[in-house]
C-alpha cells in the first residue's frame, strides 16, 4: 500500500510539472510581448503613418486595415453562419444530409489557413477580378471563420429551452415567427459571443490575406473596398522579413505585436466572460 501511495505521489508530481511547463511558456510569451512592446506604444505610434521606409512612425494604417478586414469578414460570415445554424437546430431532422453537412463544417474548420489563401487568390483575386483588395481579403477571412460562427450559433440556439418553442407554437405562431420572436432573441448573446471570438481569430490570421489583401509599403490609407491594405499580423511578418534595418524595425514589430495581442485577447476575454455569464443565467 505504501508503495502504491508513493507511486501516486510521483505521478501527481509529473502531472503538476507538465502543467507548470505549459503555464511558464504562456507566461514567458506574454512577458516578452508586454514588456518590450509597452516601451514603443504611445499615442503617436497608434495614430501616425509609418515613416522613413517603415523604420519609424506609427502603425495606424495597419490597425485600420485589420479593422476593415475583420468587419468585412464578419459581415459576410455572420448572416450566413447564423442561417446555417438555424437550419441545423430548428429545421433539420437527423438524416444523412445533416450528417454530410456536419462533416463538411468540421472539415472546413480543419482546412489549413494557407489553403484558404490560395482559394481566395484563385477565386476572388483572379477569377472574379477583385484584385488584391479589402474585398478579396474579407471574403477569404469570412469563409475561414464560417465554421466557428456556425458552431457557436448552434450552441446558442440549442440552449434555448424546447418549452419556449412549444409555447410559441401552441399560441398559433408559425415556425418562422417562433424563430424570429422567441428563439433568436433568447440566443442573441450566445451568437454575439461566437462572433466576437471569430473577429479575434480573423484579426490574427496572416496566411489567408498574404496573397489576397495585404501590402507592406503603402503611404496612404485605403480609399475603397478595392484597395490593398496593411494589416497588423502581416505588418509584423513583413517587418521581420522584408526590412533592411532590423535595429529600428524589431521595436516597431514588438509594438505591433502587443497591439495585436491586446486586440485578440481582449476580444477573447470579453467572449469568455460573456459566455460564462450566459451559461450561468441559463441554469
Amino acid at each position, binding site marked *: 500500500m505504501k508503495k502504491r501511495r508513493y507511486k501516486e505521489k510521483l505521478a501527481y508530481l509529473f502531472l503538476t510539472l507538465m502543467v507548470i511547463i505549459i503555464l511558464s*511558456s504562456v507566461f514567458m510569451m506574454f512577458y516578452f510581448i508586454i514588456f518590450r512592446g509597452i516601451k514603443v506604444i504611445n499615442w503617436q505610434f497608434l495614430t501616425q503613418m509609418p515613416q522613413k521606409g517603415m523604420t519609424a512612425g506609427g502603425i495606424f494604417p495597419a490597425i485600420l486595415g485589420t479593422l476593415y478586414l475583420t468587419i468585412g469578414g464578419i459581415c459576410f460570415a455572420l448572416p450566413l453562419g447564423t442561417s446555417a445554424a438555424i437550419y441545423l437546430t430548428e429545421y433539420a431532422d437527423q438524416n444523412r444530409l445533416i450528417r454530410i453537412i456536419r462533416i463538411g463544417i468540421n472539415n472546413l474548420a480543419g482546412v489549413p489557413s494557407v489553403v484558404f489563401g490560395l482559394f481566395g487568390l484563385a477565386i476572388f483575386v483572379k477569377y472574379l477580378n477583385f484584385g488584391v483588395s479589402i474585398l478579396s481579403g474579407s471574403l477569404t477571412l469570412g469563409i475561414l471563420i464560417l465554421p466557428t460562427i456556425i458552431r457557436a450559433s448552434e450552441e446558442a440556439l440549442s440552449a434555448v429551452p424546447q418549452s419556449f418553442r412549444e409555447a410559441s407554437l401552441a399560441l398559433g405562431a408559425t415556425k418562422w415567427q417562433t424563430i424570429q420572436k422567441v428563439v433568436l432573441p433568447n440566443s442573441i448573446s450566445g451568437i454575439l459571443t461566437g462572433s466576437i471570438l471569430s473577429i479575434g481569430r480573423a484579426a490574427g490570421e496572416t*496566411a489567408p490575406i498574404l496573397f489576397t489583401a495585404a501590402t507592406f509599403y503603402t503611404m496612404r490609407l485605403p480609399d475603397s473596398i478595392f484597395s490593398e491594405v496593411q494589416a497588423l499580423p502581416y505588418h509584423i511578418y513583413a517587418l521581420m522579413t522584408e526590412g533592411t534595418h532590423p535595429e529600428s524595425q524589431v521595436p516597431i514589430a514588438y509594438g505591433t505585436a502587443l497591439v495585436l495581442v491586446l486586440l485578440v485577447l481582449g476580444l477573447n476575454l470579453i467572449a469568455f466572460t460573456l459566455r460564462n455569464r450566459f451559461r450561468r443565467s441559463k441554469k
Partner: protein
Amino acid sequence: MKGKFFLKEKIIKNIFLLSSLTSIFFLVGISLILFKEGLPLFREINFIKFLWGKSWYPTCNPPEFGALPLILGSFWITFGALIIAVPLGVSAAIYISELATPKIRNFLKLAIEMLAGIPSVIYGFLGIVVLGPWLQKLLNLPVGLCSITASLLLALMAIPTITSLSEEALFSVSKDYKEASYALGATKWETIIKVIVPAAFPGISTAVLLGMGRVIGETMTVLMVAGGAAVIPRSFLEPARPITATIALEMGEAVVGSNHYHALFSLACILFIVSLALNLAADYLLTKFRRTSQ
C-alpha cells in the same frame, strides 16, 4: 391566406437550408480549385517524379519540382511538435479534469484558451527574436532558426487543441466506472490510469489527430522560424522547409499559369488531402466512440 403562409414558411426554410449547404459548397469549391490549378503540372512533369523528386529548385533553369524535401519537412516538424505536445497536453488534461480544484481548473482553462488565442504570427515573431537566439546559444548551433525551434513553437500551438478535447473526453467518462474502481480498492491514480484514460482513449486520439491537423497546416510560424532550406531533414537541429511555408513564400513571385504556379497548387492539394484525412479520421473515431459509450 393559409396557402400564402405555407409558401412563405417553405421559402424561408429553403433559404436556411441553402445557407447550411454553403460549407459543403466552399469545401468542394476549394478542392476543385486546388485540383484545377494543380493538375496541369502533370501534363509536363511526371507525378512520381514530383512526389519522389529530391530537389526543389522552381526558379532555376531548367526548374526542378521535387516535393519530397518539402513533404518530409512538414512531417518532420509535425512529428517533433507532437512528441512534445502530446505528453504535455494530455497530462494537462488529466490534471484539469481529475486533480484540479474548481478555481485552479478555471484558471488553467483560461490560460489554455489564451494560448489558443495568440495569433500564429506572434509565435513566429517570438521564435525569431527570443527562442531562436536562445536555442542557438544553449545548443551551440550555427543557426537558431531550425526544425526544433519550429517544433517547440508548434507544440505550444497544438496544446490547446489536444488539452481541451482530451479534457472533454476524460470528463465525459461515466462516473460509475470511477466508483466501481474505487470500490475495488484502487487508488485515485490507479483509477485514472487504468480506468479513466483507457475509457477516454478514443476521445484523446481524436484530440491528437486534430492537434496534428492544426500543426501540419500551420503556416506563419514555420515560414518565419523553420529556416527555409528545402533539403530533406536529417536532424532537428537543421533548417527545414515545410509545404505551407513554401506556398506562402513562393506564391507571391510565381507567375500565374506557370509550372511553378501549378506546382504550388499541387503542394496545396497534398496538404489539403492530408488534413482532410486527419479530420475524417477524427470524425470517424468520435462518432464510433459516442455510439459505443451510449
